């Protein structure tokens, strides 16, 4: 047997709660959209495809050695980074590649830059290289270096699965 309360409940729901719910859901969606937009508005990354087109060599490997030195004028420091190649994504490198980045530490003095890639021994990386330069340089500076951890490729706040990344490179260079 229907009661007065049963009769009121649907009206209560549809008259009062439904507009509230719709407003809240709409508001949450708006917040989410604005939040996502704000997070990506300043991004102007060099894409994988662009890097793959500009680099003549892209390798996956592990950093085995770093050696820093002053230039001939003793005014700037560079670091030669040795990478043991695990997989060639594009190009024809040897089993080991050596690349040069600006910055490093020599004899109690250090030099850092805001845009050059930095490496650490033991780090598993993917690097996009210009091997026509002697010694080789990283294309796109720090944007041309990716850290690989547990088969996840990481650059700043971006991540890819290793397979996804390799497929993107292969597609771009085709």
């Amino acid at each position: 047997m229907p009661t007065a309360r049963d009769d009121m409940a649907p009206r209560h729901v549809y008259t009062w709660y439904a507009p509230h719910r719709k407003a809240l859901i709409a508001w949450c969606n708006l917040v989410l959209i604005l939040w996502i937009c704000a997070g990506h508005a300043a991004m102007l990354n060099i894409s994988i495809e662009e890097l793959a087109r500009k680099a003549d060599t892209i390798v996956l490997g592990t950093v085995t050695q770093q050696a820093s030195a002053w230039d001939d004028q003793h005014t700037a420091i560079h670091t030669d980074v040795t990478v043991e190649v695990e997989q060639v994504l594009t190009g024809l490198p040897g089993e080991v590649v050596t690349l040069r980045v600006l910055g490093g530490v020599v004899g109690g003095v250090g030099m850092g830059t805001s845009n050059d890639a930095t490496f650490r021994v033991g780090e598993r990386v993917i690097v996009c290289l210009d091997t026509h330069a002697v010694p080789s340089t990283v294309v796109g500076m720090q944007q041309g270096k990716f850290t690989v951890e547990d088969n996840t490729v990481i650059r700043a706040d971006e991540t890819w699965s290793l397979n996804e990344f390799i497929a993107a490179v292969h597609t771009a260079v085709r």
Partner: protein
Amino acid sequence: MSVRYSAVMRGCVVWCGGLLLASQVLAFVRNDSNWAYMPNPMGENWVICPDRMPGDAVQRTKDGAAAWNYEHFQFTFDPEACLSNGAFGTLNSVNQIDFGPLSEGVLANTVFFFFTDAPNQTIECDMRFNSAVNWYTGTDTPAADQFDWWSVATHEMGHCLGLGHEDSINPPPVMRSTLAMGTVTRQLTPDDVAGRNSIYDAAQAPPSGSPAPSSPASSGGGGGGGGCSFVSGNPTDTAPLLAALGNMLLPVLVLVVVRVWVRRRRR
């Protein structure tokens, strides 16, 4: 039914609040070195080489530096001069900002030298803006095909004072590594302020006779200590928390308006 809808509403509010508060997390990154060891940090007489710089680039560079000024330091500029013979990124005891060629895709580059004593001490900082870029040097909004010099200057000065790139948080800080054409990031975010404060709040007080602070509104206490921290860990920097609470109150206000509207409609 009403219980279920109430739960949905509460869930929405909690979700929105969590999202907004999460976006306020601080995560600044510090460079290997800074000037905090000096009695007058950033008073190292910075020099701008104005050769071929477009429009009001010199003034915008100073504006970018001024964004960071607070009671613990002020960027001090010498009269414009070119003292590095066209060289960039070389150790020559001159903190020079110039305009010239850089790698493709780079808006500007900052090079800093430091002693590796603990804590690492910056001894020189040089900065170059890429001459191949279409720059906007005004104070309004750049066109869709221009990059904002003022924003980039603010960013690069952050490197000079000891901050690195921070790409993981919202709102995007000045120290984000990338900038889109036609956009500006001239104002420090709470993350930028916390990063600066974490380095210099504990630094030696400026000597007597040094200029008064120009931007007390941007000063704060605490700081994040070089790692991740939350706004609540910085007791004097309440702006982001208030902003988040304000955002959370907005849907409540909307609900009240909707409720009043529905009541009137029923009448």
